[in-house]
């Protein structure tokens, strides 16, 4: 039976068919749906962990216990999980361990464009790279076999276009889900230096063997076209782009096992053609490997390391073809993402922008508070950095800075990696003010549960962390809760906590307006007799509000009656 499946859905299907028993992940675009789809299979225990490091350790523990296990994350998540990953390369596995890492070339929704193949190389584990949904499923299934055969975690590298494209997938039965025996084996799992020294030898031997295996394995395929004028070495989505752009004009070596890279199969292929191109997205990893082995190829001297590739770029660089098209006769205004109508972050960010404080920001829907007209954010680095960077900022600039700077961080991000920064503020004593934007959900990545929401991945009731008690326990005495729909209360709280002589936490609490259980009020109305068209209400950047012909207009299909604009209007022109 064939079914149209999203790459991420096919990943989950591969885990199911491959006999996966335990899955632990942290959400992150474009990887999130893998674990959401896994949750639909009752045969697999699945969970959202508070962060990627925890998730990978859970999966490794399950693997050591004898189960086939999975852990999923986006590219930057692997930085967080790098610590267990690099040593998991040494311990190896018992049950197969497959890790999904989703890269985001083009940065559709990411803060950087790192290429996770570097992590596979540095941690010396195997990496597979599929190019469409059917391959995703097959690679994941075979990934478990490979993991057990070579005694190593196997990373399956996804990219946005593979993760978020649907194509036909052939469904099969589930197999291989028996729990393997667990035997205590300190020489393998206790990485004391004496053991680790021996394990490192094993790791290098394994890489050798896997590179040999790559010369003749189902993941690496040669596709010779009669009369081809040149050769192309490629992998993942870049294969699909190449195939579309170049068709039968080229022969292809498509690499599915991208770490370690084989030598012989590449050399044999390259020798057949005068000209050989390496077409890979982001960094020059295959290309560097070729050069290191004395294989002459053309790569990043014509292709960029920045952004996505496409059939157009390839046709242009290799065939000299340029696309033909018309453009619209006038400038088209950009349409950037914005905080939704009724977003609880809006009121708080208006207060921050009004008070002109320095804001060390973090990653989540609230990062949109950096955009005009709110423009209330000075930094966004990585998850958790808001709190720790504020402490550093204040240590550098002293008391004056402590009185006019805050950190903002979401509930999921706080649980992910904000807590340790807060302990640091208490322990190393800076008079910093931290605002936790608790919208009771992981919003940015599309509504995942987290340890503060009272539900687990499957939507069943779960223990809910009490943020107030947690902040107290981490060493903060001044902890207060405000409602971000009440801007007066927010503004007073921020002013008071900035003035206080010790560190404080303000929890801005109201659930995301898009959550199904949230009751909306009727759309607000503008009293045209009172409205003078002053545009004061536009300062909150609500997408449901605009001014036409000198009067404010509310789009009733978007407005949820949050009332922030009512408070903005000094003339009382906006109401129920």
């Amino acid at each position, binding site marked *: 039976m064939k079914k149209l499946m999203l790459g991420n859905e096919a990943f989950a299907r591969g885990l199911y068919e491959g006999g996966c028993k335990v899955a632990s992940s942290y959400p992150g675009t474009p990887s999130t749906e893998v674990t959401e789809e896994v949750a639909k299979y009752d045969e697999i225990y699945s969970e959202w962990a508070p962060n990627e490091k925890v998730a990978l350790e859970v999966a490794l523990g399950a693997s050591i216990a004898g189960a086939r296990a999975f852990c999923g994350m986006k590219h930057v998540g692997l930085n967080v999980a790098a610590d267990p990953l690099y040593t998991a390369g040494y311990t190896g596995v018992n049950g197969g361990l497959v890790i999904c890492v989703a890269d985001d070339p083009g940065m559709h*929704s990411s803060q950087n464009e790192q290429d996770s193949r570097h992590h596979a190389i540095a941690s010396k584990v195997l990496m597979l790279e599929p190019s469409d949904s059917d391959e995703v499923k097959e690679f994941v299934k075979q990934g478990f076999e490979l993991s057990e055969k070579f005694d190593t975690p196997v990373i399956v590298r996804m990219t946005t276009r593979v993760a978020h494209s649907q194509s*036909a997938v052939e469904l099969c039965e589930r197999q291989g889900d028996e729990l393997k025996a667990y035997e205590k084996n300190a020489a393998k799992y206790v990485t004391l230096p004496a053991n680790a020294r021996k394990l490192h030898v094993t790791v290098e031997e394994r890489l050798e063997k896997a590179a040999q295996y790559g010369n003749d394995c189902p993941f690496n395929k040669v596709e010779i076209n009669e009369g081809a004028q040149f050769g192309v070495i490629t992998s993942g989505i870049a294969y699909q782009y190449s*195939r579309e752009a170049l068709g039968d004009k080229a022969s292809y070596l498509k690499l599915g096992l991208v770490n370690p890279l084989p030598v012989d199969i590449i050399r044999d292929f390259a020798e057949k053609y005068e000209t050989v191109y390496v077409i890979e997205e982001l960094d020059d990893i295959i290309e560097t490997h070729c050069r290191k082995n004395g294989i002459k190829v053309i790569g990043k001297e014509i292709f960029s390391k920045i952004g996505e590739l496409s059939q*157009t770029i390839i046709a242009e660089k290799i065939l000299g073809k340029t696309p033909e098209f018309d453009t619209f006769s006038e400038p088209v*205004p950009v*349409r950037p993402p914005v905080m939704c109508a009724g977003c609880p972050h809006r009121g708080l960010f208006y207060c921050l922008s009004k008070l002109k404080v320095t804001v060390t920001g973090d990653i989540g829907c609230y990062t949109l508070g950096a955009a005009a007209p709110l423009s209330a954010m000075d930094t966004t680095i990585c998850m958790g950095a808001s709190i720790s960077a504020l402490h550093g900022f204040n240590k550098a600039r002293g008391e004056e800075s402590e009185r006019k700077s805050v950190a903002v961080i979401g509930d999921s991000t706080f649980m992910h990696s904000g807590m340790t920064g807060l302990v640091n503020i208490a322990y190393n004593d800076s008079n910093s003010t931290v605002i936790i934007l608790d919208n009771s959900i992981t919003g940015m990545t599309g509504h995942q549960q987290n340890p503060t929401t009272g539900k687990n991945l499957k939507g069943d009731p779960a223990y809910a962390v009490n943020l107030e008690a947690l902040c107290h326990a981490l060493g903060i005495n001044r902890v207060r809760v405000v409602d971000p729909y009440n801007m007066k209360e927010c503004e007073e709280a921020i002013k008071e906590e900035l003035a206080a002589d010790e560190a404080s936490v303000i929890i801005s609490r109201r659930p995301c307006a898009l959550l199904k259980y949230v009751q909306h009020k009727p759309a607000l109305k503008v009293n045209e007799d009172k409205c003078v068209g002053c545009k004061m209400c536009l300062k909150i950047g609500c*997408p449901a509000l605009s001014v036409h012909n000198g009067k404010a207009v509310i789009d009733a299909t978007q407005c949820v009656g949050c009332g922030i604009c009512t408070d903005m209007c000094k003339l009382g022109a906006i109401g129920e």
Partner: protein
Amino acid sequence: METKSIMIVGVGGQGSLLASRLIGNVLLSQGFDVKVSEVHGMSQRGGSVVTYVKYGDKVYSPVIEKGEADIIISFEALEAARWVSYLKKGGHIVTSTQQLDPMPVIQGVMQYPEDVIGKMKAQGIDVLSCDALSLALSVGNAKASNVVLMGLVSTKMGFEDKYWQQALESCVPPKFLELNKKAFELGKNA
């Protein structure tokens, strides 16, 4: 058959997911190789969103590039204009006349161009349009405007009506089926 390309564009939250599922369903029923691609995440929040649908004997790249789309389906007039460069020469635009101001327009930094549809036609582009939102409201649900547009686009795609009806039956929950069938009919005759 050579690969055909359809783009579905609009503003995050306008329901392009159902639209692409309907089209994907119809294309599968015709035995085509199909790829449907969309970017999730950040750009969903009121930003410009795009879905690619490609079909033929064998589809490789899931992405549609400038000058490649046979049809662009747009839920909002300005979004149609934004993606004009993606249209193949001789391709069709099927758009709703609905207008949603983007933030730079709301903030008064930029202007929403006047008579977008008229200007596209003046450029020699084949544009088919209808007021999908009003038609959807007339059957009782603003959310059905995506299905109204599907009705309109079905007139350009050349597949028998019964396949669209089957697609509706398998993609729409039973309690909304009648409403959506009406919406589809209105679009087809718009």
